[in-house]
């Protein structure tokens, strides 16, 4: 018995020590302690009695009951709706740029890429605050209008539209780069062959480019959708709390309301939604092909 256990232990150690597995160990440990365990503790907290602060208690479904009974579904709908609109707008405005980066810019592509990467490294509330300075009454836009043309207009700040505007702005690079990767996966010869065979520009786009670039586009949509669902700064900085997305509900539960278990239950529902979607989409992809292994 002991010998068998020892043999199993040794073969497990041997398996772990193969080159692939061995190199994966550090990051797997990090994700186990820093990602899997925290998510489990959120799950645990969501079953704790309301307004308590310890994990070790008798589990209850009280928090989920509260969520169903109250109007939290509105926040979920706002979050989902704004995320969908954001993704649709991003696909439309990013495609020409992605096409340019992959095809027509040549030497300039590197510079444009750098310019688009840079904002990722400045925290998003700083960049959103720039828009507040732009749109606010007496700010760059309205102040100029007033002093140059004498027009006095209401500010567009603190409306649902401006929240979507902010999300489009912040998540643009996350759509652009996967999309560029997708477009550059379309072999030039194939589009040329299609035009030579008499396909119109629109036909080439619809029947050749779009399907072949799809993996990159779908990854971009998934990434921006998930980020938009998790967005919180846009609604707070630009939206002035006219709309309460789920993330804001969660934050309220954890701060003002001091109801950690309720916040945890909301977070669990959101995680299930996002995680289910991500896993369902990622399952269909061969990452080696997209990231460039020959």
């Amino acid at each position, binding site marked *: 018995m002991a010998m068998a256990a020892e043999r199993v232990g040794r073969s497990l150690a041997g398996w772990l020590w193969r*080159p*692939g*597995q*061995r*190199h*994966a160990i*550090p*990051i*797997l440990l*990090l*994700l186990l302690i*820093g*990602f899997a365990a*925290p998510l489990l*503790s*959120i799950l645990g907290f969501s079953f704790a009695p309301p307004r308590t*602060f310890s994990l070790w208690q008798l589990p209850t479904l009280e928090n989920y009951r509260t969520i169903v009974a109250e109007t939290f579904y509105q926040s979920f709908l706002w979050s989902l709706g704004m995320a969908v609109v954001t993704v649709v707008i991003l696909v439309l405005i990013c495609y*020409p740029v992605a096409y*340019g980066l992959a095809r*027509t*810019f040549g030497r300039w592509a590197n510079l444009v890429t750098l*310019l688009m990467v*840079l904002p*990722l*490294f*400045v*925290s*998003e*509330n*700083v960049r*959103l*605050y*720039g*828009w507040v*300075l*732009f749109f606010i009454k*007496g*700010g*760059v836009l309205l*102040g*100029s209008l007033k*002093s140059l043309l004498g027009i006095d207009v209401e500010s567009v700040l603190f409306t649902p539209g401006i929240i979507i505007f902010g999300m489009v*702005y912040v998540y*643009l690079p996350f759509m652009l780069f996967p999309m560029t990767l997708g477009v550059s996966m379309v072999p030039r010869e194939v589009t040329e062959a299609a*035009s030579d065979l008499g396909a119109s*520009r629109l036909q080439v786009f619809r029947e050749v480019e779009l399907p072949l670039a799809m993996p990159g586009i779908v990854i971009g949509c998934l*990434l921006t959708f*998930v980020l938009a669902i*998790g967005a*919180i*700064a846009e609604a707070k900085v630009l939206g002035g709390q006219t709309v309460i997305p789920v993330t804001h509900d*969660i934050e309220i539960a954890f701060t003002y309301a001091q109801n950690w278990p309720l916040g945890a239950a909301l*977070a669990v529902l959101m995680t299930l939604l*996002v*995680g289910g979607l*991500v896993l369902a989409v*990622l399952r269909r992809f061969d990452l*080696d092909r997209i*990231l*460039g292994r020959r």
Partner: protein
Amino acid sequence: MAARTQRWMPWLIGVWTAAITLFIYLPSICGLLASLTQSRYFNFPITKWGLVWWGKTFASLEVRALLETSITIALIVTAIAVVIAFFGAIAFARFDWKGRSAFQKLVLLPIFFPQSVLGLALLLWFNALGIETSWKTAIFAHLVWVVPVVTLVISIQVYSFDPALEEAAFDLGATRWQVLREVTLPVLWPGLFSGALFAFLLSWGNFPLSLFTTGADTTVPEYMYAKMVAGYTPGVPVLGTVSTVGAAILLLGGYGLILLVRRGRTGAA
């Protein structure tokens, strides 16, 4: 008809891209303008220009402490992230092993995950373990999100790395350590360097994870957020502009360095 379409399309795409670039940088320009006023509140057009608030901001001890905290966190995150991600990228892209495809998707998961929820989850986890949050726990929180990104960045370099180079070195009698130092690291250098740059900048600019995991300590993005919500001073756009320009210098400088080294190598060869 088709030929004419072909001719003006690249031009149209160029104009559109320029417009998007302007859209991306407009808020930074507004921030710069707002930092150059002498008055306490922002009113456009600016009547009294001046660098008063730049001086005040940098003279403030509080701001110095913030910068110190943020830079310390970012440096430690960079050092640890590059090492873990180097091994992770080799498992991700170099070896064919059973479970690799699942591993790749697992590594992507934290990137595809709302950071605010991850930050909260980490807070609850630290609480359950009885760990007091401070800038040290923030380092760990940043790593959970930064390491997967850096792993992806380095993986792209590893994909284009020919394993035959390492094997040849082994055949010629090099030890494992020699192969790592003389073959693997020099070839993967650009990937490791961009990975480090990403790690530093992502940690430097991170807000959602820091918000929940720094405890009593404060990073620059957290401070700016607190000031935006209540107690605006032109010091906020000053710090914002410093962040943006600092990131630009690091990024452009780093990219220039990679180009220089690459050019030097091809020139020598």
